[in-house]
């Protein structure tokens, strides 16, 4: 368990944190996730990567935690608590830091869009793996990421950044 924890806990934590936007809750989540793994290790059938299984459990627990905190989806205050160290996108543009503006806009995506962007880009999950984790068809995975990217482009455009797409 120690090895498993050591290898995966940071990514599990970051995935959970991006969903619940609260460090305390994200830390509680990882304990719950790995405790579930300890209890259910016998049920793991090896048909998917361990990390895919862990992220699916984390997502389920994060959504449960969000449901317990009814106002979490709209809780901008909580989001700011962990991500307010950077400038607003407009300010970043003035400073010509498009990277920072892009990161800020990434945090401004909806939970559904943040999740799919993170799974594909940061957690490097294939279409099939994202479908397993999120529980949606593979075609929906592809279109959801496409529209997440379009939304990101809109946010950047509103902040004054034109990237030539769409």
């Amino acid at each position, binding site marked *: 368990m120690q090895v498993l924890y050591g290898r995966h806990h940071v990514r599990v934590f970051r995935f959970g944190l991006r969903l619940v936007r609260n460090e305390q809750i994200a830390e509680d989540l990882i304990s719950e996730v790995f405790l579930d793994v300890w209890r259910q290790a016998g049920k793991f059938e090896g048909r998917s990567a*361990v990390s895919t299984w862990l992220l699916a459990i984390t997502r389920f627990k994060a959504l449960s935690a969000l449901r317990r905190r009814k106002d979490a989806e709209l809780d901008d205050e909580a989001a700011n608590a962990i991500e307010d160290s950077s400038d607003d996108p407009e300010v970043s543009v003035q400073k010509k830091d498009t990277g920072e503006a892009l990161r800020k806009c990434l945090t401004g995506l909806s939970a559904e869009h943040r999740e799919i962007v993170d799974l594909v880009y940061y957690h490097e999950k294939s279409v099939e793996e994202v479908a397993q984790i999120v529980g949606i068809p593979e075609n929906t995975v592809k279109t959801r990421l496409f529209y997440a990217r379009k939304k*990101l482009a809109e946010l950047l455009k509103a902040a004054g950044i034109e990237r030539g797409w769409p």
Partner: protein
Amino acid sequence: MMAMSKKMADEPGEIEMLLPWHAAGTLNARDARRVEEALARDPELARQYAVIREEYAETIHLNESLGAPSVRAMQKLFAAIDGEPERKPSAASRISGGISQFFAGLSPRTLAWSATAAAVALLLQAGIIGAVLMKGGQTYQTASLSVNERPATMTRELAAGGTPPRALVRFAPDAKMSDINSLLDSYQAVVVGGANGLFRLQFGSKSMSRDEVTGLMSKLRGEKIVSLAESAP
């Protein structure tokens, strides 16, 4: 081309939707080849791909900036595991087998042919053996992870050899998991139990003389991330 691009922006084409996975390197060979061919002949698609590469890099940057959890999360986990009801031997055996299978299924992209995979498997075996010893002290069969991820079965008699030294250790509250892992590696130690913020560590695989154990405890107490270390049975 412009009209086509406009249409593409509204209704994504099949290849266009695969671009993010191409950037992340998670497409299969066939799809990767299709995307490469499309990128070579369509400058609009190539421009969009450049935008995607930027998104990809900044998403990684953003996630990496989120930091890591404190040691409190690990302490809470091990305390919870310690509080779990004791399993019957058959259940423990099943779980041991499950974890072995579990590791045999580790992601090929992130682990395959990695030299560290073999080290992980060895540590895993030590961890499982230690955990099972705590629960009943029997002989178990575990699987080790080979470079091509096919488990090679081996059996170890746990009773063989002397008892390696153990210690109860409390880590400093601000200790990071990466520091703890480095310490465990440098001492060839594994966590075999824990409760209330104290971890029971086992060092190496051989017994030590009293003087060696005293020296080991003294060295441990000198570690910056260790706030308490006492020899324990």
